[in-house]
C-alpha cells in the first residue's frame, strides 16, 4: 500500500426507520477531535427529522414489543457480534472523539460491548425478575407483567460517546421499547457507526433511530411530542433540564433524570430497565 494513499472519508448521516438520510434541513456541522482538528461533518438534525424519527419508532413499536423476548435477545446478541467485529473502528473513533489513549479507548469499547451483551441477556429474564403472581385475598388469579412503555427519547450522554450511549440505548430496546436517540453533540461519530452496526444486525428498521445535531435544539421537540412516552434526560445540557421536564409534563411522560455525570464504567443495575417499563396487572376469576 502506498504511503501516500488518500483515505476515503466517510459522510456521516442520520439513521431513521432503518435508512440513512441526510438531515431534511440540509444542514451539517463540523465534528472535531479532542485537540480541535477536523474529523468530519455530521448531519445536523432538525425538528422535522425528530418527528420523522418518532414516526418511525412508533411504526416499529408493535412489532418489536410483540416479538418474543427470546427473539429480541437473539437480535441483541447479534448486535454484540457485529459490534465485536468493528472493535478497531470504534476504538479509533472513541480515541479521536474523547481524546483518550488507544489503550483506554479499547477498554471503553470492550466495556460497551460487554454492556450490550449484559442487556441482551435481560430480554427474557426481566419479566421473571420484576413480574409477579399476586396472592390476592379472593378467588382471582392476578398477575403482573412488565411491558415496554412505548417510544423513548434518549438524550445520550455528552461525554461518554460509546459506553454511555450503549448504556442508555440497550436497556430501552431490551425491554421492547423503540428509541429516538440524540447523540452526543460534540462526539457523535461512534453513534453513527453504531447505527451501521444496528442496520446490519437483524434489528428491524425504526427500533433505534439516531439523530446527530444540537441536543438543545432537538430535545424540546421530543420532550413535548405527544407520541413519545418517555424521556431519558442523561445528556441534556444542565440549563435545559428543567424546561425539558416541564415540556414532558404536558403529556405526563416518564422522565429518567439520570445526571450527565453518571459513571458508566460502574456495574449497571436494573434502574435503567425499570425506568422504561410499565407494570400491567391482569385479573381473572377462579371457578368452574
Amino acid at each position, binding site marked *: 500500500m502506498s504511503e501516500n494513499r488518500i483515505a476515503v472519508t466517510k459522510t456521516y448521516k442520520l439513521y431513521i426507520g432503518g435508512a440513512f438520510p441526510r438531515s431534511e434541513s440540509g444542514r451539517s456541522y463540523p465534528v472535531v477531535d479532542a485537540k480541535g482538528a477536523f474529523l468530519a461533518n455530521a448531519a445536523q438534525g432538525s425538528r422535522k427529522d425528530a418527528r420523522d424519527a418518532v414516526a418511525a419508532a412508533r411504526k416499529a413499536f408493535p412489532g418489536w414489543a410483540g416479538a418474543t423476548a427470546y427473539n429480541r435477545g437473539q437480535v441483541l446478541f447479534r448486535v454484540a457480534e457485529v459490534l465485536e467485529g468493528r472493535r478497531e473502528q470504534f476504538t479509533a473513533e472513541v480515541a479521536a472523539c474523547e481524546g483518550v489513549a488507544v489503550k483506554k479507548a479499547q477498554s471503553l469499547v470492550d466495556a460497551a460491548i460487554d454492556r450490550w451483551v449484559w442487556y441482551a441477556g435481560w430480554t427474557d429474564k426481566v419479566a421473571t425478575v420484576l413480574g409477579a403472581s399476586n396472592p390476592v385475598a379472593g378467588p382471582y388469579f392476578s398477575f403482573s407483567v412488565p411491558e415496554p412503555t412505548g417510544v423513548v427519547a434518549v438524550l445520550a450522554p455528552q461525554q461518554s460517546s460509546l459506553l454511555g450511549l450503549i448504556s442508555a440505548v440497550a436497556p430501552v430496546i431490551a425491554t421492547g421499547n423503540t428509541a429516538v436517540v440524540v447523540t452526543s453533540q460534540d462526539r457523535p461519530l461512534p453513534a453513527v457507526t453504531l447505527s451501521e452496526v444496528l442496520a446490519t444486525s437483524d434489528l428491524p428498521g425504526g427500533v433505534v433511530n439516531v439523530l446527530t445535531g444540537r441536543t438543545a435544539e432537538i430535545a424540546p421537540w421530543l420532550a413535548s411530542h405527544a407520541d413519545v412516552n418517555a424521556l431519558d434526560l442523561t445528556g441534556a445540557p444542565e440549563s435545559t433540564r428543567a424546561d425539558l*421536564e416541564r415540556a414532558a*409534563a404536558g403529556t405526563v411522560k416518564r422522565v429518567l433524570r439520570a445526571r450527565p455525570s453518571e459513571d458508566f464504567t460502574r456495574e449497571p443495575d436494573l434502574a435503567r430497565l425499570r425506568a422504561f417499563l410499565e407494570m400491567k396487572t391482569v385479573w381473572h376469576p377462579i371457578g368452574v
Partner: protein
Amino acid sequence: MWEYAPAPESRDIANLKPNYRMFIDGQFVEGAGEPLKTVNPGTEEVLAEVSTAAPADVDKAVKAARRAYDRVWGRMPGAERAKYIFRIARLIQERSRELAVLESLDNGKPIKESRDVDVPTAAAHFFYHAGWADKLGYAGLGPDPRPLGVAGQVIPWNFPLMMAAWKIAPALATGNTVVIKPAETTPLSALVLAEIIQQADLPPGVVNILAGAGDVGSAVVSHPDVDKVAFTGSTEVGKLIQRQLAGTGRKLTLELGGKAANIVFDDAPLDQAVEGIVNGIFFNQGHVCCAGSRLLVQESVADELLEKLHARVSTLRVGDPLDKNTDVGAINSREQLTKIQELVETGDAEGAQRWTSACPLPDKGFYFAPTVFSNVSQAMRIAREEIFGPVLSVLTFRTPDEAVAKANNTPYGLSAGIWTEKGSRILWAAQKMRAGVVWANTFNRFDPTAPFGGYQESGFGREGGRTGLEAYLDV
C-alpha cells in the same frame, strides 16, 4: 317486584364531632387557614367544621416530618416500624364500623361499599406493608434500599380513607415520614385515622395530616423540603404538579384519570358481563378513576346486551348512602354534580341516545340517576373525557382488532375490562391493552398485593405489590 324496606345504618356510630382539627407533630392543632364546613352530600347538611392549613402550617408539618425522619423513623429498624404499621391496621379493623359510617356520611358512598370495600381494603394495605418494612432487601431493588425522606401526598375525595392508606402505608414501611392532605370535601376519615395513629403511639411527626383545598395541596407538593411527592387526582392537576416539580430532582408518582374500555365479545356470558358492567361504572357512583366508562360491545350482541343492561340498571336503588340496600349513593358535591350534568348535556347535543333509569331520587342531596348513552361515537366528548359519575357510554365494534383499536384510542391508560369465554382471547386482548390494570370477566378488583397504576396520561408509578415500594425508595 318486592320492594325493600329501608334498612338504615345508625349515623351515631360515626361519633361525629362538631369540630375536627389537623394533626401535626403528634398533636391535634388548629390550622391558621379559613375553617371549612364539610357537607353530607346525601342530605346537604353540614357535618362538621374542619380547621385548615395556612402556608405556615404546611411548613410546620414538613419540619415535624423532617425531624421525625432524621431522629426516629428513618433510622428505626424495619422490624420495629412493622409493629407500628401492624397496630394501625388492627385499630382500623377495630373501629371499622365507625369509619364506614363516617366515610358514607362525608363522601356519600353507599354504606355497603364503605363497609365491604373501603375500610377493609384500607386495613389490608397497612397489614400488607407492615410485613414489607423489615424485608425491603428482598424487593428486588438492591440489598439495602434507602428511604427518600419526607413524602408529600395529596389524595382525592372518591376513596378518602382507602387512598390515605394506599399512600401512608407504603411510605411508612419504607422508612419515610408523611405530610398528607385529604380532599377538601372529604377530610373526616383521614382525621379520624390521625386519632388511630395517635392511639398506635406512632412517634410524633411521622404522619402529619393537613386539611384544606387545592392551595394547601399545592403548598405541600411544592415545599422545598419534601423529597417525594405522590398525587392521586385529575390528569389536569397531575400535569401541573409534574411541571411544578420539573428540575427539582424530587421523586414523583402520579395516579391520574382514566376512560377505561370494558370490552364485551359476542361469546361473553352476557348476564355475568352485565353485572361486571354495572360494577364497572356504577360502583362508587362512577367516582372511580379506573371506572369502566366506555362499554365496547360486539355488534352482534349489542341489542341483546343493552336490553339486559337497561333492565338491570333499572333495579339499582339510588338514595340514602346509609341505607344498607342502597346501590348508588350521593354525588360527592354540588360542583361535581354540575360537572356531570354539563358533560351529559354534551352527549345529548352531540347526538348520542340517552337512557336514564326511572328510579326515584331523594329531594335533598346531590344525586344523579344512572345513565347509559348508546350510539356513541369515538369523537364525542362523553367517549373521550372522564365524566367521573354514573354515566356509561356504549360503543360497538365488529372485530377483535377493532375493539382493541377503539379501546386504546385515548390518551389515558389506567384500566380495561374484557368479557369473553375464550381464554386465548382474554390473554390476547389483555396483552394488547395499553392499560395498567386489566380485569377479565371481572371489574374493579383491588388488593394490596396487586400493583395498580396507569399508562400514558393516567400517570406513572404503581401502588401495591413489590412494584409499589419503588416509589418510596431511593433506587
